[in-house]
């Protein structure tokens, strides 16, 4: 009941004309930029972050939630028509979606992904509404030691457990943590890793890192390795309408995908990549038309797209209630909060109830707006796809440099941006995950603060992390996650040796 009141109050905030307008601008800009090939939600949010400088926090954050959702919707259009997934979470959609488009079924593919995203996003938002207050209840009991243990857990799963290589994941994480150390130490005011450069004393901004890795790195990679390849775009011909058969095959996939995607979003599992592939595998297993898989089965589009959106909403649970980002995009969103001096966490639900619940209510509104924007107006977004690649990347880099330059009006930030661009180029080329770096940069300083606070409270007694039950459990689970796969591998190898 209390939740319902809070939500109704949130709707009162979200539906004021100004905030409705910010939400509308957010979903429109998010869709438009998200449609651009090679531009995923993380880059969209990062490039548009400098815009917030002059806006009031509630409006700006509502706009960012819209951009976050919009970029996801827009990305599916690109994936289906161009077969160039802008982010890892769209790869599963590309498998069947592009095949459907090749067979002249682009319309139903776009429809099932848009409606599926709407259904999954809306159900997931209801789950977020119900779950967030419960997590807040628990999180209010957390002290610095618990937070620190939880962050260690998040670092470990994102960097070491998921992904193709523990070593490369950890390398990415430690790089991010190192970048996070640059600047003034929050506790003592001592400068660290700044080398007397004024731009570095402020710390490395998440915008520079994310835009460098995602925009500059991507542009360098695409130009150096793919610019001579021909590009084919599927035509959007025929009706957008889904047949009765399409509906019958889509809706169970949407619901199953929501059930898979949402929980994965709420745990630190590195975003939407795993649940989308899981949903694809489930649909492939359960389908009554196995022969269609690989040739454009509609379930293979409906499932992953719905899972993607459900997990994107799930990500907001730990972000809003605990202040813990579990994907690169969430880390950048956390940067948007920090620009306003707002630290997401359980206290936010008390001190800034208007803002949090307004934001949650705006997600319901955003889902509806996106359905309207994406179904009847899909023709407009298809035009965006026709921008030639040289113009596209040139434009992206103009915006990328603008974001970095506007931080201090200094070329030093542009040099930093280029260095991160080279890093992103190498990471892309050598299969090093990028998300752990972004999460390390933004979460590292918070984890350090909690660590030192916990030790201050215990007067330097380091056992505080293992004597308190919640903190000890997080650390134990973390250790298990690291040790168990290693032991299993050893045993398998030993068995194979015998």
């Amino acid at each position, binding site marked *: 009941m209390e939740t319902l009141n809070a939500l109704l109050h949130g709707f009162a905030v979200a539906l004021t004309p100004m905030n409705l307008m910010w939400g509308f601008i957010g979903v429109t800009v998010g869709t438009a930029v998200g449609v651009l090939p090679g531009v995923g939600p993380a880059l969209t949010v990062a490039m548009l972050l*400098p815009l917030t*400088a002059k806006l009031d926090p509630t409006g700006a954050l509502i706009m960012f939630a819209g951009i976050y959702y919009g970029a996801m919707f827009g990305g599916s259009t690109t994936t289906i028509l161009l077969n160039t997934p802008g982010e890892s979470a769209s790869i599963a959609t590309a498998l069947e979606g592009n095949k459907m488009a090749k067979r002249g079924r682009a319309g139903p593919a776009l429809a099932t992904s848009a409606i599926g995203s709407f259904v999954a996003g809306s159900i997931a938002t209801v789950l977020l509404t119900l779950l967030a207050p419960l997590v807040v209840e628990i999180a209010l009991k957390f002290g610095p030691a618990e937070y620190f243990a939880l962050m260690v857990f998040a670092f470990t799963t994102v960097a070491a457990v998921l992904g*193709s*290589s523990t*070593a*490369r994941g*950890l*390398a990415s994480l*430690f*790089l991010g*943590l*190192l970048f996070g*150390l640059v600047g003034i*130490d929050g506790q*003592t005011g*001592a400068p*660290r*890793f700044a080398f007397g450069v004024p731009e570095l004393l402020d710390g490395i901004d998440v915008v520079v890192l994310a835009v460098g890795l995602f925009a*500059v790195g991507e542009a*360098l990679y*695409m*130009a*150096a*390795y*793919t*610019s*001579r*390849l021909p590009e084919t775009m599927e035509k959007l011909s025929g009706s957008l309408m889904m047949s009765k058969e399409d509906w019958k095959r889509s809706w169970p996939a949407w619901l199953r995908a929501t059930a898979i995607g949402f929980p994965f979003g709420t745990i630190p599992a590195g975003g939407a990549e795993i649940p989308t592939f899981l949903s694809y595998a489930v649909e492939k297993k359960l389908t009554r038309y196995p022969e269609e898989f690989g040739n454009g089965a509609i379930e293979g589009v409906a499932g992953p797209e719905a899972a993607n959106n459900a997990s994107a909403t799930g990500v907001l649970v730990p972000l809003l209630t605990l202040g813990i980002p579990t994907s690169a995009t969430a880390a950048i969103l956390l940067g948007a909060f920090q620009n306003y001096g707002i630290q997401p966490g359980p206290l936010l639900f008390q001190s800034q109830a208007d803002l949090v619940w307004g934001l949650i209510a705006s997600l319901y509104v955003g889902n509806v707006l996106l359905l309207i924007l994406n179904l009847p107006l899909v023709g407009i977004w298809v035009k965006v796809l026709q921008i*030639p*690649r*040289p*113009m596209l*990347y*040139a*434009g992206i*880099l*103009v*915006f990328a*440099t*603008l974001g970095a*330059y*506007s931080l201090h*009006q*200094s*070329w030093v930030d*542009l*040099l930093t941006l280029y260095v991160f661009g080279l890093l992103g180029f*190498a990471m892309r*080329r*050598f*299969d090093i995950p990028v998300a752990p770096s972004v999460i390390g940069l933004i979460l*590292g300083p918070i984890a*350090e603060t909690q*660590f*030192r*606070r916990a*030790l*201050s409270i215990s*007067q*330097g007694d380091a056992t505080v992390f293992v004597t308190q039950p919640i903190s000890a459990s997080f650390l134990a689970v973390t250790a298990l996650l690291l040790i168990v796969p290693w032991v299993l591998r050893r045993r398998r190898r030993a068995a194979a040796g015998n």
Partner: protein
Amino acid sequence: MRRSAAEIALSAGVLGLGAFATLVTAQLSGEGGYAGIGPNFIPAVVAAGLLVVGAWLLWEALAGGWRNRGAPEAGAEHAFNAPAFWWISAGLFAHMALIGWAGFVLAGAVLFACVARGFGSTRVLRDAALGLALSLAVFVFFVKLLNVNLPAGWLQPLLGSAGI
């Protein structure tokens, strides 16, 4: 046995960064107050982490190559196109040098033209004109509507008299 010079170099880079971080950390204060640890503690942990991971990657690179490296799909990549890479880099450096002096609009036009060239466009003048139009629109939007401070540079007399 596959050995990649690039993998070895990158691993050594991580190792080197760890060594560098160790050196910098050694200069930091260890004054800890109540916590008993100072601003140098976490940097030391991170530096140690970089050293360990760098050594681990180097070992992998020398012993059969990095593990589970996803190979690009057939037809998804061509050989390294050095001019493309350098055109984009040159564009970014020209932009860096020009922005504070010639202004945001002109620097943006040069960057746009260089990046388009890197992606294989051959109509340099048309690209520069497009870049000029885009940067000008962005400049007006940000300076006028969002009050973001961007340098007008050489175009100051022109932009100033236009009331921008």
